């Protein structure tokens, strides 16, 4: 084991973590916003809205992320119509293709997590809110969504961690994230073990921070579970 090489490579890989963190935060943020909408569609009584949401989740959860990334990056570029349209400004860049794939993917998973959260809100609480004359919007904002988020948080934390790891797949479409840079260094040094251990340590650190943040949020959102001193 060449420790010197590991230490030398570390700063280079850290440079890549900047891209990784960007990919994770942007796609998680947009994906989450879309997921709330998708979860509401999924819970709606309208057959078509419900069917749309179900189909979307079925396809994006049922196919590998790697395939989705390839289809969005290499697949869409096959159509001349796209290449000659304004959309090409977006699809030309590997970076945005990566963000799009990650966003659509996490949206599907998150919407199911949120749906589970919303459905776990005890009906008694909804009823009592209604009895005070709350509007539907206020009911969601004040009662249903806050409780749903609290219920969904542990599962969503999982999704965030999975997303950090999933970003490593975008290195296959020329994006120089942590894994992309690791591959570049391996090409020169021929030492995959040292470099991948160093890369793994960086992913581990990012996920450690996320885990702590989620525990902190859980702690804050469940004051009734804390022992009073």
């Amino acid at each position, binding site marked *: 084991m060449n420790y010197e090489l590991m230490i030398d490579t570390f700063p280079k890989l850290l440079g890549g973590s900047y891209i990784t963190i960007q990919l994770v935060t942007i796609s998680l943020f947009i994906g989450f916003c879309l997921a709330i909408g998708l979860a509401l569609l999924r819970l709606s009584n309208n057959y078509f809205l419900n069917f749309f949401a179900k189909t979307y989740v079925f396809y994006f959860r049922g196919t590998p992320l790697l395939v989705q990334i390839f289809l969005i990056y290499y697949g869409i570029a096959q159509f001349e119509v796209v*290449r000659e349209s304004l959309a090409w400004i977006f699809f030309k860049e590997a970076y945005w293709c990566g963000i799009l794939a990650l966003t659509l993917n996490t949206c599907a998973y998150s919407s199911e997590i949120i749906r589970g959260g919303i459905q776990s809100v005890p009906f008694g609480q909804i009823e009592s809110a209604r009895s005070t004359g709350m509007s539907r919007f206020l009911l969601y904002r004040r009662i249903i969504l806050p409780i749903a988020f609290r219920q969904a948080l542990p599962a969503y934390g999982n999704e965030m961690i999975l997303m950090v790891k999933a970003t490593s797949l975008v290195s296959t479409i020329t994006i120089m994230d942590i894994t992309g840079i690791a591959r570049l260094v391996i090409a020169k040094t021929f030492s995959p073990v040292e470099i991948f251990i160093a890369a793994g340590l960086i992913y581990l650190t990012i996920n450690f921070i996320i885990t702590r943040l989620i525990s902190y949020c859980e702690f804050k959102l469940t004051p009734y579970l804390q022992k009073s001193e």
Partner: protein
Amino acid sequence: MKRFYLTLISVLLTVSASYAGDWSKIKIGTEGAYPPWNGTNAAGELEGAEIDLAMDLCARMNAECELVAQDWDGIIPALQNGKYDAIIAGMSITSERMEVINFSQGYANEPASFSVLKSSPLASLQSAGKVNMDALDNTSSALLDSLKSTLDGKVVGVQGSTTHENFVKQVLGDSVTMKSYDTQQNLELDLTAGRIDAALSDKGSMEEFMSSDNGQNITFIGPGLGGGPFGGGVGAGLRKADTDLLEMINKAIDEARADGTLAEHFIKWFGKDISM
């Protein structure tokens, strides 16, 4: 317990020692994604000039061979870890690779060249001349300079972990934006899509693509490139320790060259003789 370990180690040593001398069975690693050198056909079988060559060499060495497909970027580490015993995968003999593995004598040599879309403004640079990076004279330096100024500020694509990637890094440096692809096919896809302005690869594999429906609108620009970062020809990669296998393979290549079959393999797949 200590004795147990000693016994275990000595058993392992005997096993590997007896294995090292016995080359009746050889595993050969190839990429299988680099036609016409080594590709994979619709049925999922490996095919190409180097697949034929490998089988030919094995017959000459009286060895039973098994071909293993391995992604390009892990092809040297997997050799070192003993997943197979030789690499026959269009791998150029370079000093960097020589630091970690041994090479047989070269069996083929094909210049590298940049290619662009015919509709690209870069296509105005004529595809002409040859540049040997080891022996630059006035003419070839001028060719290289006009290539450099044409590509200045452009996006250049290469397959990762290749001599082409090294050339772009060492010779063009920061004057271009480099994009590395995992396979030659993905590089070709992005060249046709117009995501990159130019691709650098060996001529033979790009010609294969140009002869397909999707590659009709691709053309070479600038000189054919060789030597320097491109190394001195393509050879079989072997572990440093396996000097006996190295001798066997070199002898087999000599024989194949002498009776003309070496050239035949390449004529069959490349339509021209690139053997050396």
